Each structure stands twice: as structure tokens, then as C-alpha cells.
């Protein structure tokens, strides 16, 4: 006995979609910052900055100034330049690692949802074991074994994210599998793989992509943590986490050496989070593609 409600008029719908001032701030500023970072990362080679590895001891530990726009670190290296090159590492990791998790995680999750019995039990147990295995150890172990490099760090972080993607994929796939269109496809003679790829997968993508955006920032922090611990990307490649670690001992004397890269990392993470949040709000809360 629900009260009758009329469908909203077209005017009402249009009014709802007009961007508010606050939304503009929440989406445009983060996009702006990320574009700046992207710009610096891409054009680092051509910008009029000192090389990130040039040590200029005369200028060591200087704060922001004319010669070094964001100051110099303990060895006199230009911070801005190192940030730009470090951005490459961060962006690579944050783009590629979630992709790995997305592809393999979704596959596993989809399989676990579609099939029952031994396949499902095996996959679920595997995912639980992966979750229980301390992720940082795995990343550390992998980089130590295979040698520290950007690729290996990316690979390690990507594999780390597989269980989460698998869980989301499975949670989204389960309600879809029971629905009519899957049944219809099966009756029409479609094979399992076809059904999974053509019917179920497209409906899960929105939710998975939203999560991917969310963990991009997590990846940046994770890479930063590895570099901070000294087991991430090796020198001479600069990385944001490494730069923060460099300034750790002299925090009292020259805080800017650690704090400027920390601020850059913070703003990047914040921007990614804000974007992810806005995206999630627009979709109205994390369900699958079908509303």
C-alpha cells in the first residue's frame, strides 16, 4: 500500500543535473592537479630543470628559491626535477598495477561466482590465503627475489590487489547469474565462456572501474611505502617515497626536504580520492551497472 508517486518532470531532472559550485570544486580542482602532475611527468625531459641526479653541493639543503624552484635536497639535487621524474614512477604504478588486479581479479571472481563446487571452493580458499599473506611481505619478497625495479614493484602491487577485485567481481556477478538473461542465453545454447564474457562481464565493469580508481591512490602510497623502507625503486631513479625517506634524518633542520614531496603525494592522493568519490556518488552508490 505505498503512496502513489508520480515520475519526476523533465524540468526537475534537468535541475538536478546542473553542476553546483561545490561539485565543480570537487571535480575540477582534483582533475587540475592530476593534469599538472601528468604534464610534469610526461614532459620532464624537455622542461628547463636541472637533471634530477645532478648534485650541487653549494646549493644543498636550500629552501625554495630562484635556482631551485622547490629547493634542493641534502645532496643538492633539485627537488622539483626529482618530483617530476618521481611522478613517472608513481603514475606508472598507479595506472598499471590496478589494471593487473582488475584483469586477473575479475576473472577469478567471475569464475568463483559462476561455477560452484570444487572450483569455487578452490578459488575462494586461494583468495583468502592471498589476503592472509601479508601483502607488504609479498611485495618485498618479490622485489628482493626478482630485483628491485619499477616493473617488479608494479607487478607485486598488482598481484596484491587481485583478491579485492575478485571479491568485488564475485559480489557483483552473483546476483546477475540468477537473472533471466543469463538463463535465456543458456537456453539459447550459449557456452559458459560466452555467457560470462558477453552477458555478465559488461554489467560488472562500472563497479570494478570505480574500485580501480579508488585504489590508484592506495597504490601510490604503497609504492611510496616500499621506497620509504628502501626496498622500492632503486637509485638513481627518484621516487616520491624515497625522497621523503631521504629527508627523514634531518627533519628538524630542513623539513622541506621531506615535507615538499610529502605534500605532493598528499595532494595527488587527495585528488584521486575526491575523483573516485564523486564518481561513486554520481553512480549512486556502488551497485552493478544495472540499477
Amino acid at each position, binding site marked *: 500500500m505505498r503512496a502513489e508517486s508520480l515520475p519526476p518532470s523533465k524540468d526537475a531532472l534537468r535541475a538536478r543535473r546542473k553542476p553546483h559550485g561545490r561539485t565543480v570544486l570537487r571535480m575540477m580542482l582534483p582533475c587540475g592537479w592530476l593534469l599538472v602532475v601528468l604534464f610534469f611527468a610526461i614532459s620532464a625531459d624537455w622542461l628547463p630543470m636541472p637533471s634530477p641526479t645532478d648534485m650541487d653541493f653549494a646549493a644543498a639543503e636550500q629552501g625554495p628559491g630562484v635556482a631551485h624552484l622547490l629547493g634542493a635536497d641534502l645532496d643538492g639535487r633539485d627537488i622539483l626535477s626529482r618530483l617530476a621524474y618521481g611522478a613517472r614512477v608513481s603514475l606508472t604504478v598507479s595506472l598499471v598495477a590496478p589494471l593487473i588486479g582488475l584483469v586477473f581479479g575479475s576473472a577469478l571472481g567471475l569464475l568463483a561466482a559462476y561455477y560452484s563446487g570444487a572450483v569455487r*571452493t578452490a578459488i*575462494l*580458499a*586461494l583468495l*583468502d*590465503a592471498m*589476503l*592472509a*599473506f*601479508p601483502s*607488504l*611481505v609479498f611485495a*618485498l*619478497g618479490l622485489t*628482493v*627475489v626478482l630485483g628491485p625495479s619499477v616493473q617488479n614493484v608494479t607487478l607485486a602491487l598488482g598481484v596484491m590487489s587481485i583478491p579485492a577485485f575478485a571479491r568485488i567481481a564475485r559480489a557483483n556477478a552473483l546476483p546477475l547469474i540468477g537473472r533471466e538473461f543469463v538463463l535465456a542465453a543458456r537456453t539459447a545454447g550459449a557456452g559458459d565462456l560466452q555467457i560470462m564474457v558477453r552477458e555478465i562481464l559488461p554489467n560488472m565493469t562500472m563497479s570494478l572501474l570505480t574500485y580501480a580508481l579508488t585504489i590508484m*591512490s592506495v597504490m601510490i*602510497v604503497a609504492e*611510496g*611505502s616500499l621506497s*620509504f*623502507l*628502501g*626496498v622500492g625503486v632503486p637509485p638513481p631513479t627518484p621516487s616520491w*617515497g624515497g625522497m*621523503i625517506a631521504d629527508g*627523514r634524518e634531518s*627533519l*628538524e633542520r630542513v*623539513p622541506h626536504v*621531506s615535507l615538499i614531496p*610529502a605534500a605532493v*603525494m*598528499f595532494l595527488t*592522493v*587527495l585528488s584521486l*580520492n*575526491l575523483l573516485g*568519490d564523486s564518481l561513486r556518488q554520481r553512480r549512486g552508490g556502488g551497485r552493478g551497472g544495472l540499477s
Partner: protein
Amino acid sequence: MNRFIKLAGIARRASHVLIVVALLSVATFLMLELLPGNVVDAMLSDNARPEEIARLQHQLGLDQPMHMRFLGWLGNAVQGDLGTSPLSGESVAGAIAHRLPVSIQLMIFAQVIALLLALPLGIWAGYRAGGTVDRLISGGAFGVLAVPHFVLGLLLILLFAIWLRWFPATGYVSFGSDPLGSIRSLALPSLTLALVEAPIYMRLLRSDIASTLREEFITVARAKGLSDRHILIHHALRPSSFSLITVMGINVGHLIGGAVIIETLFALPGVGRLLIEAITKRDFVTLQGVVLFIGVAFVFVNLVVDAIYALLDPRVAARHAR
């Protein structure tokens, strides 16, 4: 009949746990296997004589077939013997036992502080969802979340250890020898860890409270003339705590294995530090033992969390047994 269903449910969960632990132990063991040469190479110098290599291999049991080694190792592990570190000579289990109290202390302090922050703020924000208070609190949480945890630690060190000189930046004092000093030495690390987790807890609680407050039984409680405070604490809190408890459980499970970054940053002799040292020094025997311990601990903590669920919401227990 009910009891039978419950037992079947428990049996099912127990077998799942066993499978997970089995996978974990295989994976951990394989870690060592993937780098046979490295173990020995790492521990001896480059121009070691073949006899030395062979002796070390025999000492580590590397000359036996893999499955024998695995079973031997597993058999020992079940009895609590995780081997001896070839580098330090210390028993691995002993090293873990030595360091565990530090990590557990850190975890407990951190969770308590996190809850002290997240509970009132989360309830308040959920109660006034959509209002100015909510926007401030949620915005603040959002901002804190965006700060990487090691940066957070650095900032706290800068503020409290360097500028204000209230707390020491590094070092650990054991609880037994000096309780007050122990708390002081753990203050900054726990605060850092708490600030990492509190925003997440707060957001979960806020969102759950906001949606619980829309339920009909809350209106019924208001119709009975109960005060808002009474309703929040006695009616809204319990049904809204499930997400929070889930995540807390996961965090506790992970933290038993130590907080690697925090322990490194603040120089605490916890399980996390043990892990890092084992990795960087290539002490794979210790590494195996510690990883197995961490993994198993995580799995068991999750079991406990599930049990807590069933206590809080008996409908969940019924569903699990099915």
C-alpha cells in the same frame, strides 16, 4: 535439529580455514624453494669452498627431496618449532615470541585510540547526516585519509617529538619494566596508527548510523518518548556496527603481524621489524616462520570476528549454519 545444523556450519568453516592454512604453508614453503641457490649464496661468501656449501646445504636439509622437507618443516611447525635462524642462531619461534608483545601492545593502543576518536565522531556525524557537523567531520576524515601513513608518522614526530618534545621519537620501553615509560614510547606510533584507521572507522560508522536511523524501529523508539541519546546508544549503535567490526577484525588480524612501516619509522622491536630484517638480510628460514605465523594468526582472528558477529546478531548465526 538446530544444533546439528550449527555443527555442520562450524565444520564447514573449520575445513575452509584448514584449506587456507594449508595453502599458506605451501606458499610460504615454496618461497624458499624458488631461490635455492640464493639461500646458500646469500649466507656464504663468493669464494666458498664446495665442501662448505655442501655442509650448509645438509645443515639446512636442502639435500633432501622437496616434499620430505615440506613435511618435516610442517611437522615441526605444528609442534611450535619454526626452525633456527642460521644467521642469528636464535630460534624463530623464540624470536617471534620475544617480539610479539610489542606488536600486540601497539595494536591494542592504536585500536583503542582509533575507537575513542571514531565512535563519538561517527555517531555524531551519522546523527546529523547532511548537516554542517557531518560535512566538517567527514571532510576532516577524508583529508586525514589522504595522508600516507609514513608521512603522518613524520608529521607527528615533527610536532610532538621535535617541536613540543612531549614524546620520544624512537625506541621502545617494555611494559613490565616501566609502564609509564612504555606508554610514552608507544604514544606516537599508536597515535599514527590510530590516525590511519580512525577515519575509515568513522566513515563506516557514520554511514551505517545514518541509514539505521532511517529504519522504522527508530521512529517507533521516538514514539515511545525515548531521548535521542538513548536511541543512538541503545538502538542505533548495535545494528550499525557490523561494517566497523569487520574492518576492525581485518586490521587486528593484520596488525598481529606487526605494522612494518610504523615499527621501522619509530624503531620498535616488533614482529614487523623482524620481517623486514629477515627479508633484507636474506634470512629465509626466519622469514618462512614469521610469514606462516602471521598468516595463521590472521585466519584465526577472522574466525573470532565471525564468532563475535554471531553473538551480536543471532540471525547471522542462523545464516552461517545454513
